[in-house]
């Protein structure tokens, strides 16, 4: 039997079509991942989803299903509280939106670290992996990891200051949504009061009277030679603990 060129040429594309149709009919033709992370196969965590297998293509919704962490918590941790549809946000979006801040990076590995600390699961992050300030606040407030162990990661905390709730830089966008209570450079004392802080709480952290409520916290600090971050963090803690 001889095989001519035209027959051979059509054979492989035909095999592709037939193979794809058969595998589709059998439910095996998949061009996307299942979004189910691999599970620990040994040890006390055997059978639980392993955060090390979180991938950039996972959405907040996928993570909620896999690790039982509410989408709202994930969105808040990564500065997406104001997003209209946080369920669709993908982990790989962080790298584009935040990327490298200082020497640290907010990317897929950051989410792996956050999930592991939130659930108290073992995971060794990369050396330059960052944790956003809101994520850090959540871990301190409701994470399953012991505070002593958690403190080892304090040097990885970075501020999302300068980014708005959709992750883009907010220097020209000072509007914050009702749910987003992340303190940013454009946050005013009036907004802090609206979010539920008392004047006494704010003054207690500032060490002086805050004065006019329309002024931004950053401008107030700048005018008085106070480092903004030293005020912002305890104020944010108060907000997160409300």
């Amino acid at each position: 039997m001889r095989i001519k060129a035209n027959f051979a040429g059509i054979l492989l594309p035909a095999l592709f079509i037939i193979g794809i149709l058969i595998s589709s009919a059998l439910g095996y033709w998949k061009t996307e991942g299942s979004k189910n992370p691999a599970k620990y196969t040994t040890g006390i965590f055997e059978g639980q989803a392993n955060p090390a297998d979180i991938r950039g293509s996972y959405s907040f919704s996928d993570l909620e299903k896999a690790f039982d962490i509410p989408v709202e918590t994930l969105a808040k941790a990564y500065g997406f509280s104001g997003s209209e549809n946080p369920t669709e946000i993908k982990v790989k979006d962080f790298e584009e939106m935040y990327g490298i801040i200082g020497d640290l990076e907010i990317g897929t590995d950051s989410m792996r670290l956050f999930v592991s600390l939130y659930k108290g699961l073992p995971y060794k992050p990369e050396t330059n992996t960052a944790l956003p300030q809101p994520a850090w606040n959540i871990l301190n407030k409701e994470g399953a990891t012991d505070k002593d162990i958690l403190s080892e990661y304090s040097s990885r905390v970075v501020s999302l200051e300068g980014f708005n709730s959709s992750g883009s830089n907010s220097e020209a966008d000072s509007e914050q949504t009702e749910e987003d209570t992340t303190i940013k450079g454009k946050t005013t004392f009036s907004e802090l009061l609206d979010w539920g802080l008392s004047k006494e709480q704010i003054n207690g952290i500032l060490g002086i009277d805050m004065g006019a409520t329309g002024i931004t916290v950053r401008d107030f600090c700048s005018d008085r030679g106070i480092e903004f971050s030293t005020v912002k963090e305890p104020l944010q803690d108060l907000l997160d603990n409300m």
Partner: protein
Amino acid sequence: MKKKPKLRTWIQLALFILIAIIAVNHTLVESGNGIPLLGSASLHAVCPFGGVETLYHLITTDTFVKKIHESSIVLMLIVFVSSLFLGPIFCGWICPMGTFQEWIGKVGKKIFKKKYNRFIPYSIDKYLRYLRYGLLAWVLYMTAISGVLAFEKIDPFFTLFQFWTGEVAISGFIVLGLVMILSLFVERPFCKYACPYGAVLGVFNLFRLIPLRRNTSTCINCKACDRACPMNISVSTSGKVRNHQCISCYECTSDDGACPVPNTMEFRTNKFKTEEITK
């Protein structure tokens, strides 16, 4: 008279365009604007080599390496089945990277004429041909221990169809640039010396069920087959071609290639009748 394009040319062009559309569509889907009816398959999802790369993980942990899905396994099996009968026909007729090199090679042929594809001395070339097996071993080992696609950073195919995405490493651009430059001098340089998937499929040439056969009783020893072979195989000295570099392109055959004598160079399971009569 201008030569009529062969079926192979059309199939290569169609597959190149299809892969380009899939690659572009995936980018559009990522930004929420995919082409209707095309789905969202990534370049990795439609590459059969991904199936080979993930085999170790699939067997040992029942998982896929990152970016690889079930579709790659399906495509890998289809290509393996076709290779069992016809050898690396995927390389010669389907692979867009091979097609791309051939297109650049046409420019090289115009520049260097008969000298084209004859620059590297055989004494060196015959050893260089085994480089791709070393690269295959490295790719499989690194992918097995890391769980990520080790080849992606130097993969010219990935670079060619993803250069606009920002996901391509500098090394990928360097390798693609080198392949493009070398293609002006050598036909299919990546396939010959570096393609790990070509290495896998090349092995099928050793036991394929339908090999390339030369009818020794009708062959006029004009060596047109040797000159036509993009992989520089010495076809005219073999009765049955089992060279690991054959890509089943049919460029040397009597029906659709350079051989001027009918029924002399063919892909066939059995010997030529005239050969048997002569004996």
